[in-house]
């Protein structure tokens, strides 16, 4: 009616948007850090290696692996599934590359680094394939199929490294996680490029539409002639490959694979990032952008807890708060409560009579 209404409506839409709360949460965390240390946001340039240095850069670096698995997880969840195996796939990928680099013993060879990457990605794709077969052909629930690969995967990593935390040295491989281009960490640039590539494939082809369609309504999609099996293969193998890349990121930064800690429980962070980003665990509409924000939020949360001097093992408690608050915001019951209150306010004068 009045000119203010569209603005209000637009604001309301913004507030309803899941990204919005994620961004609010990130801003809040950064504000807390600034309060603790006013120089928190400062970034300086290191002339020695051409790198930007600062807390924000650290956050970008920490975001990279979570970003990879969150994007893969987002597509899996959109089909109505879940992939619990990504953490274990990370460690397998790390183990394979470290083991290869240690044995090939060529610390400067770019070829060796590329071969290591190829091996890591290859085995990750293979593990994704196993998930896909279990889900799409054997017909097991995604939860249990990927749980099996989660358990077996970590064992496999230990077998590959004979239970040791394997260390290797290769400049090229190390550069992936520790190098800088244009002052930014290479690892972050690679991650962004991959995310953009995935987003481009998903949205420019009909893949995204098909995934959402089977996640929303498997029955109607089948009648529309959609090949669910093929899509599940694409998505689970894709999630495996992205987890493999995350594994490379995680191991390359220290050039060591820690068979019991690399990627441990990161599947939970990935699921969390996806849920924060507004993709429902029930499947259907997905938001890669939301998952990206979710990944940033988790990395920021991790770094903030450490920065504030709280033990990093206490981080999960803060994650729990984030989950509960976001779930409550999503729940019909709470939304109805708000709606009723607003409605009651709006129609209060009229209600007096009928009440």
């Amino acid at each position, binding site marked *: 009616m009045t000119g203010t209404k569209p603005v209000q409506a637009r604001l309301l839409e913004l507030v309803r948007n899941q990204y919005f709360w994620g961004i609010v949460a990130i801003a809040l965390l950064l504000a807390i850090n600034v309060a603790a240390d006013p120089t928190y946001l400062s970034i300086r340039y290191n002339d020695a290696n051409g790198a930007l240095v600062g807390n924000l850069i650290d956050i970008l670096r920490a975001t990279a692996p979570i970003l990879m698995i969150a994007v893969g997880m987002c597509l899996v969840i959109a089909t109505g599934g879940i992939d619990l195996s990504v953490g274990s796939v990370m460690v397998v990928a790390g183990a394979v590359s470290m083991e290869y680099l240690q044995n090939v013993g060529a610390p400067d060879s770019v070829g060796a680094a590329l071969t290591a990457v190829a091996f890591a990605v290859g085995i990750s794709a293979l593990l994704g394939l196993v998930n896909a077969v279990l889900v799409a052909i054997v017909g097991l629930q995604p939860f249990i199929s990927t749980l099996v690969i989660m358990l077996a995967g970590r064992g496999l990593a230990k077998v590959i490294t004979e239970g040791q935390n394997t260390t290797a040295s290769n400049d090229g491989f190390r550069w992936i996680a520790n190098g800088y281009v244009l002052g930014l960490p290479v690892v972050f640039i690679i991650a962004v490029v991959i995310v953009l590539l995935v987003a481009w494939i998903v949205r420019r*082809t009909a893949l995204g*539409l098909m995934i959402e*369609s089977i996640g929303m309504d498997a029955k*109607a*999609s089948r*009648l*529309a*002639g959609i*090949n669910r099996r093929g899509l599940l293969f694409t998505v689970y193998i894709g999630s495996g490959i992205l987890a493999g890349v995350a594994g490379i990121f995680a191991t390359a930064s220290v050039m060591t694979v820690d068979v019991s800690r690399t990627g441990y429980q990161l599947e939970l962070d990935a699921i969390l990032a996806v849920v924060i980003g507004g993709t429902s665990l029930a499947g259907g509409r997905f938001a890669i952008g939301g998952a990206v924000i979710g990944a940033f939020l988790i990395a920021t949360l991790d770094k903030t807890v450490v920065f504030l001097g709280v033990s990093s093992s206490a981080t999960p408690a803060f994650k729990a708060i984030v989950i509960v608050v976001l779930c409550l915001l999503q729940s019909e019951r709470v939304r109805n409560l708000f709606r009723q209150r607003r409605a009651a306010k709006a129609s209060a004068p009229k209600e007096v009579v009928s009440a």
Partner: protein
Amino acid sequence: MATSLPIVEMKDISISFPGVKALDGVDFRLYQGEVHTLMGENGAGKSTLIKALTGVYKIDSGQILISGEERRLTGTADAQAAGIATVYQEVNLCANLTIGENVMLGHEVRGPFGINWRATYRAATEALKGLGLDHLDPRQPLSSLSLAVQQLVAISRAMVTKSKVLILDEPTSSLDANEVENLFTVMRRLRDQGVAILFVSHFLDQVYAISDRLTVLRNGKYEGEYLTRELDRTALISKMIGKDFATLKSLGRERQEHHGEPREPLLTATDLGRKGSIEPTDVELRRGEVLGFAGLLGSGRTELARLLYGADKPDSGTVVLRGKKTDLSTPAAALANRIAFSSENRRDEGIIRDLSVRENLILAVQAKRGWFRPLGKKEQDEIVGKYLKELNVRPADPERAIRNLSGGNQQKVLLGRWLATKPDLLILDEPTRGIDVGAKAEIQATVAALAEEGVSIVFISSELEEVVRLSDRILVLKDHRKIAELDNGPEITAETIVAVIAEEGVTEEGAA
């Protein structure tokens, strides 16, 4: 019978859902010791009325009296406490438990050490015996029983709760003759014990065999209450369809004979069938022909259509398409062979609610191409623009979520989805159900135009006059099988088909 106060009395009941008035001032009375059948076509409001009586839906206005007392029912448990038990078509029992556990669930006999299973099973045996089901061992798993017997078990469960009113919602739709007879024996026994039974069925023979009284609903409105013996079949069908006998006869005259000369066959199905849904059936379809499937709900008309599209896998028969034997066991395969199928279940099997109009429209074309060969923006706009315009979709906004469109417009979008795949054979199952008159006429016109262009069409509808008006030939189905194939012509009217359905199986003096 029926001298005292009714045990259930529903007065002037209205229920609305967003955009639809599901029940509009409906009255219903049920007496002790009678079998009372609720009749009506799809969307007439039968199940809404039942859900109002069982407390699943809240009524907007009206009154429900049980044993003369007004009640506000708030849920199944509440209705059960008031003595109303329901047995649904898709038996709502737990297949993972035993027969006895199911009968007694929530009413187990308890002793000092928790549930006393011996006494509980004894009570279950008693309850089963009360219905003449002595031969069942209550310790056997429920899943070992056929659906028919499971239904009887569900009825014994209702008797354990000492129900005075028993609602049987389409209990016979998947039973064979013997099973139906067993069910009727049980129903008569209960009726004689004074239980009031509300029965819903689409099978006229069964309705006449078992019920004492009928209430007919049409389009959510009360049509009338009759003693079964005073209303013959043809009159009943007229009441359900809402045309009196004279109108029924005059309808269909206007249909023009648009295809005289024989055309080459497109599809020939031989012995196509699937256990439990349709007996082996032959279907022949020529190019540019509209083949109507007529029959009441549950006659097998939908089941047959689904087999032609591979929506269900046939377990017998072969299909020859364009002279070649073709495997149509999945929708994707059928679509690749230029067959399209629009399901009667628009909400669950047609539209994908959360996708936009554009996405819903291009879905089948895109699925046919594969995801890696996306339709370009321009191609999409072309397809979407073309069909939104041709089919007159309102509002013509492709980015709107389809769930926000009216039923008729959703149906038009779906029609567009299938037309966009350029089908040679288009199967339309109830394309005009539950949509407004204008949209209905538009869809009918589209069907006629398509046939003119050479597309073969299978047309299914509960409205016989619609089938008669559009079809070149009509395949009549009843009780899961084909009972007749009629060449359409000026002599064929909705009434002819009603007569075929009503007479089939009735040995002596057919009505009409």
